[in-house]
């Protein structure tokens, strides 16, 4: 990749980043352009992933090179989905959807049972069987998890009315849920902020002389745009008010 392409890339990346950040001030055409570009680029990216990683090696090559006709079955089921656009024969798309639903459901049962059900119960109970070799703090932690899981399950158990002791236990379950939600929220915030630091870091890199001050110049252009737009908007508003008064 030549130096010119790298500099052009830096200008495009800095421009698109600043266009999207400009939404924090207010909605504007540059944000909308970047937003629509993102939509198109995202679809383009996944299009090439599906073409070069799935349709090429899993449909085209087996069919044309290896003459594996079995591949025609999922291909036809897949094509059937597109009949959704023709109302008269849209029922054909059911064949593709039912395959996806059948396979997905058949896979979801053992996967959910092993990872989300049995493993979670096992993880809660197993430490309780090893208490003899655990420190007092580890025993406390194991009991805390077991107690918390039972309380949370009581909160989600609607077959008995939540009153008396059941209500007390389910209320304690809410506190465990709140700790989890708080922790998940904190993690999400920090993940978003790390992305933000990454964008600032890129803007800082592209503000270098080597990139012809891409970040500063684009930001300056955006500021000028907003100033001009604001003043013109004010003038237009005054003219409209004068016309209304006149």
């Amino acid at each position: 990749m030549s130096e010119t392409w790298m500099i052009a890339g830096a200008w495009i990346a800095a421009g698109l980043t600043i266009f999207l950040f400009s939404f924090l001030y207010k909605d504007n055409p540059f944000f909308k352009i970047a937003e629509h570009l993102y939509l198109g680029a995202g679809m383009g990216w996944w299009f090439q992933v599906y073409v070069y990683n799935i349709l090429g090696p899993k449909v085209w090559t087996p069919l044309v090179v290896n003459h594996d006709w079995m591949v025609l079955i999922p291909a036809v089921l897949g094509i059937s989905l597109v009949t959704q656009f023709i109302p008269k024969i849209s029922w054909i798309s059911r064949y593709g959807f039912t395959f996806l639903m059948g396979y997905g459901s058949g896979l979801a049962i053992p996967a959910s049972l092993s990872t989300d059900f049995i493993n979670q119960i096992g993880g809660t109970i197993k430490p309780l069987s090893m208490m003899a070799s655990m420190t007092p703090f580890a025993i406390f932690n194991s009991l805390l998890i077991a107690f918390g899981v039972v309380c949370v399950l009581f909160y989600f158990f609607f077959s008995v009315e939540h009153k008396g002791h059941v209500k007390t236990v389910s209320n304690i379950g809410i506190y465990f849920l709140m700790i989890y939600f708080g922790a998940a929220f904190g993690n999400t915030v920090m993940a978003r902020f790390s992305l933000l630091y990454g964008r600032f870091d890129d803007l800082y890199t592209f503000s270098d002389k080597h990139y012809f001050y891409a970040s500063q110049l684009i930001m300056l252009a955006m500021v000028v745009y907003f100033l001009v737009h604001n003043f013109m908007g004010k003038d237009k508003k005054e003219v409209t008010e004068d016309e209304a008064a006149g």
Partner: protein
Amino acid sequence: MKLIKKQIPLAIVFVFGVLTLISYYIPHKKSVDFMEMMNKWENIVAAFAFFLGLISLFYSHYSKIARKVDGWGYSLFVYIGFLAMVVPAIYCHGKQMDAAGKTALGWSFSFIYNPLSATMFAILAFYIVSTAYRSFRIKSLQAFVLFVAAFILILGKVPLGQIIWTSVLGWTGAGVDQVIDWIMSYPAVAGKRGIMIGIAIGAVVTSFKIIFGIERQYMGKD
């Protein structure tokens, strides 16, 4: 007609659902091969499902341009963005890197898709902060617990927070990293496990309902 439109699709769900479920528990080469084949088939059908979405998106933006509705010009950028990724992909046969370094597709990914995607999610940081202000107005003890858990997690992951913790709560002997680790490993796990067990039961029940044709909303109307 009812047979073709309704009963055969329901039979497909049942047959593929039951075969996949049974194959998972049979430790035999044939069932392993079957699962591999099903996985490949699912990938292929899912790829076509993506094309369904793509055609729908293109049609929606095409009709905006054709009818010249407000802001129709922005719809052109959907096509430009799409071509900015697909044309280099065709040129480089879907490869991001070659012996000479980054290809045209790699360039498009690094300088168009990646900045757009990362910035779009980074913007959410600002909105999350404003949401946090609203949700952290402590109205009850439960909201306070949520606030404390989130606050410790956020505080502990920035150097300034670690300095504040050491100077205020340093006497306890527990570092903020240890406290975060304890929250994530024990009380938060208890909450998460309760939810996961609930989700698993829900997923299993819904899957059985789909396999046996009790739940059939995905088939649409007749």
